[in-house]
């Protein structure tokens, strides 16, 4: 039997901002890079994101937040995933993240952050290189 490993990524928008253009552009870029993207829609609570990530058995969760609440919302998603035995899922974040917030977020388990200066290609490359290999 053939075994096909395909990267699965959940793109989620925690918080209250109503802009998902960036998230949609990223979703398209990931798809064009051969990745399966699950898009969950706007205004998601961390608990909803964690639950979707677990049900979908994704390798990566990409969080996008433009509302400024990333310091609360991103670590909460990591925490919930860990609580539910899914700490091996790679969590990355993007949006309006100021430089000085990055170390704190990384310490909380958000492994990579892509602020306003990052290119879509950088994010795609990072995900392809760092998505955990599963058996």
């Amino acid at each position, binding site marked *: *039997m053939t075994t096909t490993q395909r990267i699965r990524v959940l793109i989620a928008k925690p918080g209250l901002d109503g802009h998902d253009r960036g998230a949609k552009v990223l979703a398209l870029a990931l798809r064009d890079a051969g990745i*399966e993207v699950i898009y*969950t829609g706007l205004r998601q609570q961390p608990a909803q994101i964690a639950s979707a990530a*677990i049900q979908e058995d994704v390798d990566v969760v990409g969080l996008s937040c433009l509302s400024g609440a990333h310091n609360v919302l991103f670590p909460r998603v990591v925490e919930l995933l860990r609580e539910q035995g899914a700490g091996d899922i790679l969590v990355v974040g993007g949006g309006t993240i100021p430089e000085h917030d990055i170390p704190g977020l990384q310490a909380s388990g958000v492994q990579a952050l892509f602020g306003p200066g990052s290119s879509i290609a950088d994010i795609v490359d990072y995900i392809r290189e760092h998505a955990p290999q599963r058996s």
Partner: protein
Amino acid sequence: MPAELVEKMLTGDQRALARLVSAVERQSAEVPEIMQRITPMLGHAYCIGITGPPGAGKSTITDRLTAYARQQGKTVGIVAVDPTSPYSGGAILGDRIRMQQHYLDAGVYIRSMASRGHHGGLSRAAKGVIKLLDAFGKDLIIVETVGVGQTELDIVAAADTTVLILVPESGDAIQTIKAGIMEIADLFVINKADRDGVERLQRDLQMMLHIRHASDGWCPPVLGTQAHKDIGIVELHEAITTHRRKLSETGQLATRRQQNRRQELLDLLQQQLMATLTAQFDDGEAHSGLLEQVEEGTVDPYTAAQQMLVENDDLWR
């Protein structure tokens, strides 16, 4: 590894279920063991297939049917299929967006699947996933497919009740709609009934369906819904229940499921024999030169095939 995961899954662990679904989806070598372990638990769930053209409202209807079933205390598993991009092999799976109200409900498991292109592969995986959800204990399983192509037909054939969702604008399309689905659907829904053209489509459908009526004793009802406003959902649920009752009472449910299992076995054998044969051909040594003679055109393929089947009885071992 599969033993542990199956054990955990059977205690209600969603993460274990999700891992098993992935194993089935990528057709891992563990699939036979997984299937062997869960087979004693199967047969409880009732499976509804939802199909129809892009944008017809399949996800919205799945979402509303789920909400209704939850009100009745039933647990629900959802498999939502979206197409894989033929260019990159990637996919955007967006059906979930319409199902947000269920994200935090432990009684609902939603899984998005990409069609992944290769023929037969999707239906094989989807059937496996349906079984996992059944073993997990779901009362109701809803499979949403894209309404084009042969693989989708295969998946809906795995369902107990198949619902075809159309919209008023589908009027002209039903003439050309993939032959097969009109025959396979047990229920017809005209969604977006808030738009013009409902009566006409309803008339056209009913005319087509009358011809079918005689053959299997079930005249598929044609219902109107406005899924985004929750209109017609209770009636749709009722119609599904009526169909289910009719299948049970006439023994057709058992027959259908038997036929599906039989087909599954045939498909599996075919696939494995094919793999063995292909390997033998690639090997080059088998068939005492017959292959070369066919390639050169000195022996016809019919004669060669017959001879190979006789000589090649190790194919069956």
